[in-house]
């Protein structure tokens, strides 16, 4: 483990420690909700970063993996009374399989074409679930309320357990991304992102490693779909397969900074509270001010800082250190 990696692990540990204290500072249920959603979306950003941030394959279809995970947990419990943990595992495997089957042929496509193809696949999966009677089609599934506990992943008296469940998931997702990004495979993926031809020339098999990144990303996304289901206790295809979910994942990761373990954390820390609190403050007026504010922020970031929040912090770090970045130092 090099010095930079050690430094990042330490920073991650400190931030996670601080985040663990956060839910204890308030009993406000709305704040707890924001914290749960923050952890879930930050984790989804980490998962998406695996395929897009590292491998450079822009996916606009991650809602399909999220939805598969959500439905797996819901159906396992609703149809068979099985623990959502079982549903979660099945969902992760199913999402990995779908990710592999669908994306392998699509990896021939480059840039915008790949992005559009993922969008199309997501729409197909959405339509399938809307029409599938066994999973209650368009009417969705109300997850039966069960005795609270880790086995059922239902907690009714407080949201704190959900906060820590989502935090645990986030720790796993961030660690998985960090490990992948700093492993040999991570460097292969970055090489593929920079130039597939050059990567092939030095003996890297792009198809194999992109597939590996997609499978990891899809299964991780599905796991958070399952957690989401147990948190909301009601899902329908419009909630979990909609483009809105995919776009939110893309937005927060791009806003935070692509390809960095911190990107989704910063992005979710800005976007999730912003969307929640602007809605709380202005949503009741019925004038859409919350959505306008949200949109303005995205436009500003896109125009003035396409590298995201991580990019802003790095450029500050550069100017504060006589133009030499930590990355440059680490590389040296």
């Amino acid at each position, binding site marked *: 483990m090099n010095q930079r990696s050690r430094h990042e692990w330490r920073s991650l540990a400190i931030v996670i420690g601080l985040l663990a204290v956060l839910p204890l500072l308030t009993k406000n249920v*709305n704040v707890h909700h924001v914290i749960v959603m923050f952890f879930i979306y930050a984790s989804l950003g980490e998962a998406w970063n695996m395929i897009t941030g590292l491998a450079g394959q822009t996916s606009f279809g991650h809602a399909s993996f999220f939805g598969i995970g959500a439905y797996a947990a819901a159906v396992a419990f609703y149809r068979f009374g099985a623990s959502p943990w079982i549903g979660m595992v099945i969902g992760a495997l199913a999402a990995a399989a779908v990710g592999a089957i669908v994306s392998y042929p699509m990896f021939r496509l480059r840039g915008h074409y790949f992005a559009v193809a993922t969008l199309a696949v997501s729409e197909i999966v959405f*339509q399938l679930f809307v*029409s599938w009677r066994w999973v209650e089609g368009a009417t969705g599934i109300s997850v039966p309320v069960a005795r609270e506990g880790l086995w059922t992943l239902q907690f009714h008296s407080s949201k704190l357990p959900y906060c820590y469940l989502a935090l645990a998931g986030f720790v796993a997702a961030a660690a998985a991304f960090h490990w992948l990004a700093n492993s040999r495979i991570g460097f292969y993926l970055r090489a593929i992102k920079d130039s597939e031809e050059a990567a092939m020339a030095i003996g890297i098999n792009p198809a194999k490693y992109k597939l590996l990144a997609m499978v990891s990303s899809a299964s991780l996304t599905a796991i958070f779909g399952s957690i989401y289901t147990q948190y909301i206790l009601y899902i329908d295809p*419009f909630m979990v397969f909609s483009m809105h979910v995919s776009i939110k994942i893309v937005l927060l990761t791009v806003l935070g900074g692509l390809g960095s373990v911190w990107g989704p954390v910063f992005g979710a820390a800005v976007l999730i509270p912003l969307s929640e609190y602007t809605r709380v403050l202005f949503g009741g007026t019925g004038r859409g001010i919350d959505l306008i504010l949200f949109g303005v922020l995205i436009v500003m970031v896109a125009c003035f800082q396409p590298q995201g929040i991580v990019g802003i912090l790095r450029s500050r770090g550069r100017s504060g250190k006589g133009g030499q970045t930590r990355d440059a130092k680490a590389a040296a």
Partner: protein
Amino acid sequence: MRRSVLALVVSFTLVGLMFIGNVALAQPVVKIGAIFPLTGASAATGVKLKYAVEVAEEIINGLHPDIDVPLARTSGLPKLSGARVQFVFADHQGNPEIAKSEAERLIQNEKVVALIGCYQSSATKPASAVAERYGVPFIAGSSSSAALTERGLKWFMRIAPNDDMETKFFFDYLKFLNQNYNAGIKRVGVVFIDNEYGVHAAEMVDKWIETYKKDGFELAARIKYPTTVSNVDTEVQRVKAARLDAIFHASYIADITQFVKGYRAYDVTPKAVLNYCGGFQDPKFLENLGRDANYFSGSNAIASSLFAKMEVAKRINDLYKPKAGVDIDGPTIEDFSSALVMADAINEAGSTDPARVLEVLKTKTFYAPYFVSGKVKFDDKGQNEYSASVMVQVLNGVYEAVWPVEFKTAEPVPAFPPWRSR
């Protein structure tokens, strides 16, 4: 001397004003949460529902002796020392996840004592589950999915007739047309949007057709269309091919507008088109389609033509129309009712204690002269027993009440005239 007297008077006046101000500030407020789709695809309807609830708030808190509804003649809630009612609005954006979190926020942070909403059944489901968990009464005004009142919830009630009741109402109306106008309606089809609202409506047709087969009806087509539909040509051609005498439509305003244009373009002339509570009831239907809107029918809690017969509904509309710019419609008056009934129950309970409010909601028959049934009473499942519907048909660009006969404002036209002869 004069100056000191003047100073004394001014001081007393100021202290007096402060006291009055404090009394006004100290006046208790009862908060009720109102969750609607105020942005997103259903925002146009959601904002109208908000206006209707604001009218209810105005009637409850102000003095309106000319309106014969509960709490209009007094200011605030008389049995709670004149406490004012404040509806705290929240926007669920058509998203069930947000509906759930807003319900939690309203209960926990805003300390609302009851909830109303959420228009879309898919949003009402999780929001009412939250109310159930916290033991807070929840009245849905216009959510029509029958499944909502089949969940065995203790704290949930619904004003609108559900799609189960509406389907039976439709078949009874068709029987009425056959018996009294010799309409000859046999082949029935259902055209429905592929979401909770549409799918449930279609399931109710599947259920009730079994009962009405003996009356000569048969289900000849089941045509589903996607929520994101932008062209309904295929669906319209399927309707034409099925040679339907009557079509049951579960559609929102954008879709039903497309279908009517399609029926005209492909010269589809069924005898009757009956619409579930949805797009047809929106006055935009008349605005968008002009003369093409004529002869379409549907169940509705109110129609502007009924204002002449129902003085109370007219008075409510007089307060509503300046805000919304259109006459009050069915779903809107149902959500107005949910606000008024909830406030009435809290007042009757003389307390905001949820158990006492629930007790009133479960036992009282509420006076509701703005509905044709005139009353609201919740059954064991929380469903309003008195169907607040009349069959309306658009005739000469006006929603006319055509059935039941006691509320009739015009004779029904039992069969569509050909498009070219209009």
